[in-house]
């Protein structure tokens, strides 16, 4: 070889650039990662007191309607003792305040986006879209992912509250960052009551307790630690109930009703009590079951709600009962994710009323009378990973947007009954599928009857690994509604599509857009 010194010098300049610049960039990106809080610095399970989110008070009431004002805003929260965690809360509360409303009363919720212009760490614009999950809201008030409210804007959501009593929840549904917005704290329960639910001798009042279960991971500086595992899911090493890590709750020696909501981004749970005693499941997503179901353990996917009654009268004062989690497949587990919360039995006096579970709860719910024979057609939803994206029948929400919101997976006529066969042919992940607008009945899973805890009206169904689940439902309502996976990371990337209930007249999901806040900020 006869390279001159000059040649070598020139090649050195090029070679230096080729080898050094990529490395420099990689090292720089690497130093911008968060460092995870060591598990030794996390609180010990069952040391922090249990609490219940506040109840939201209406700002105005008239003969038909309760009006609420909700400000989504940043807060500095004490989650891990000794650290401050920046979160976003509805009215500054994480989880958000509980709404309680009686069937037939309308609610109007003014949702004000007072979030910062960009997320302080993740640098995205936190537009929002509020979905009341479990409500057959009109399309323009359903939290359609593309019907967004930017920081500095607000929107009035109108809810009819016509369905049966149930545990609903309102949470963010903003396009492409639902997972991050919900992890930051934008989730809350919403309790709808009706005369039947009120008349049953099941626990009410202080013995009717919301349990919003979520998981999170923290960085050394107290911020939430974000890792979506190549868009497969976000998993925390801390299990939170109503925003508190592994809390301990004092319980009296009687029956309690727990409204279990899995508000995790990607984690599913399989609950059990360390006493070995059963849960009595009395209600599912869409409200009271026909009959209670006794189960020693059951799995709960994201966004599913189960109301369970636990009888603490069988334990002596001083006994601690632990709610545990034997994780279903394809979750990422850590040291203490097998624990959820503890109940310490105390000897205090209690009101003996409403301390039973009758054999019949809501035997006449028409949803539970539907059979496959009522269906006018059967449709298939295939949940598949394609080109590094999560899809439904090969479609993503970007496809829906590109079609100018015309693309639909199904177009039943108003009043039609249909069977949907939802298929997950992968063994590598599970998908809890949420169909907006409707309550459905689970017909079967891989040809076998649904699990005992699923024998009630549902709006999310756990479609596990290599499972095909059939559901039957009647489409009452009009217009376009979303269908999506409730692993919110999957939903964001981009396992979401829609269906349209075809009727003579319907409203468009984007027909009542948000408005800008007035200059003085007063509403």
């Amino acid at each position: 070889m006869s390279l001159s010194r000059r040649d070598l010098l020139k090649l050195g300049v090029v070679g230096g650039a080729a080898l050094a610049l990529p490395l420099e960039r990689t090292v720089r990106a690497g130093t911008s990662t968060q460092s995870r809080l060591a598990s030794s610095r996390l609180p010990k399970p069952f040391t922090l007191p249990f609490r219940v989110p506040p109840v939201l008070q209406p700002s105005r009431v008239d003969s038909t309607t309760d009006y609420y004002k909700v400000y989504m805003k940043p807060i500095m929260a004490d989650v891990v003792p000794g650290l401050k965690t920046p979160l976003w809360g509805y009215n500054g509360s994480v989880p958000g305040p509980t709404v309680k409303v009686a069937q037939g009363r309308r609610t109007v919720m003014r949702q004000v986006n007072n979030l910062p212009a960009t997320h302080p760490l993740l640098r995205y614009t936190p537009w929002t879209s509020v979905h009341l999950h479990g409500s057959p809201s009109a399309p323009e008030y359903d939290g359609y992912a593309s019907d967004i409210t930017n920081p500095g804007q607000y929107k009035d959501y109108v809810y009819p509250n016509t369905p049966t009593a149930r545990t609903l929840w309102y949470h963010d549904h903003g396009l492409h960052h639902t997972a991050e917005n919900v992890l930051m704290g934008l989730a809350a329960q919403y309790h709808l009551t009706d005369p039947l639910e009120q008349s049953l001798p099941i626990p009410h009042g202080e013995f009717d307790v919301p349990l919003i279960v979520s998981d999170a991971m923290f960085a050394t500086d107290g911020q939430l630690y974000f890792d979506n595992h190549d868009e497969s899911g976000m998993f925390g090493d801390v299990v939170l109930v109503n925003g508190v890590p592994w809390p301990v709750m004092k319980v009296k020696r009687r029956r309690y009703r727990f409204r279990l909501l899995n508000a995790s981004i990607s984690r599913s749970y399989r609950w059990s009590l360390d006493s070995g005693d059963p849960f009595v499941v009395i209600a599912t997503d869409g409200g009271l079951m026909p009959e209670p179901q006794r189960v020693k353990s059951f799995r709960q996917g994201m966004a599913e709600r189960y109301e369970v009654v636990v009888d603490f009268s069988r334990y002596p004062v001083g006994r601690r009962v632990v709610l545990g989690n034997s994780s279903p497949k394809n979750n990422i587990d850590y040291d203490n994710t097998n624990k959820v919360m503890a109940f310490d039995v105390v000897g205090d006096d209690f009101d003996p009323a409403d301390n039973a579970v009758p054999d019949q709860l809501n035997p006449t719910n028409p949803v539970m009378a539907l059979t496959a024979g009522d269906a006018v057609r059967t449709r298939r939803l295939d949940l598949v990973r394609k080109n590094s994206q999560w899809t439904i029948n090969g479609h993503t929400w970007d496809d829906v947007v590109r079609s100018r919101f015309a693309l639909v997976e199904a177009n039943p006529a108003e009043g039609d009954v249909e069977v949907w066969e939802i298929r997950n042919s992968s063994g590598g992940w599970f998908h809890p599928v949420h169909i907006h607008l409707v309550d459905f009945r689970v017909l079967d899973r891989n040809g076998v009857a649904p699990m005992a805890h699923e024998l009630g009206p549902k709006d999310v169904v756990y479609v596990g690994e290599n499972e095909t689940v059939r559901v039957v439902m009647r489409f009452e309502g009009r217009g376009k509604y979303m269908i999506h996976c409730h692993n919110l990371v999957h939903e964001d990337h981009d396992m979401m599509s829609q269906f349209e209930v075809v009727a003579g007249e319907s409203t468009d999901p984007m027909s009542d857009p948000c408005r800008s806040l007035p200059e003085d900020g007063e509403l």
Partner: protein
Amino acid sequence: MTATAREGLPAAAVDDEGEPLRAHRWRTPSVEARTAGALLGVAGLVHVVVTPEHVDEWAPAGVFFAVVATAQLWLGQALWRGTAKRVLPAAVLSTAGLIALYVVSRTVGLPFHSDGAAVSGGGHHGPLLVPGGHGNGMPVIPGSEGGSTVEPVGLLDAVCVTAEFAALALLVGLMAVAQRRSVTNLLLAVGVCGWVAWAAVRFT
């Protein structure tokens, strides 16, 4: 008529193996040529190894990697056997181009994948279709470079680009002096541009 006669070389000329000497062959592959061939073989094998994962991400990327791997392996054996003289300029330029592509992909990202395709670590790239949205709604997860097409440098990347660059230097050395000067000047210009762009971004 033989190729030798057609190309006007002395009919008597033969190489070491007793075959007629042809213009696109070196008499004997030099140590430099053989080393360059071996290095390109290494780079080609790295590209073979990573082809399946690129197919999984985005089919056209997989095809590109398969083509690169094939070309490098072919060139590697040709250099080893001494039959690559005629393609030397093409080999130098394509290797340089490949290195440049690599540098871009690891620093500013490649402008591909805008249509539902993805690179590992991020499924959403390209324009965000969010009517009414203010700014960018795609979270950037620290460390994972979510929402960007920049890939981090891995061990295989480092092995591959080092082999390619060493091969490139050896191949430049094999070129005729006149050709070599214009090629090294061209490379120098590209290298200087790279450094200037980096400095402009980092220090302004």
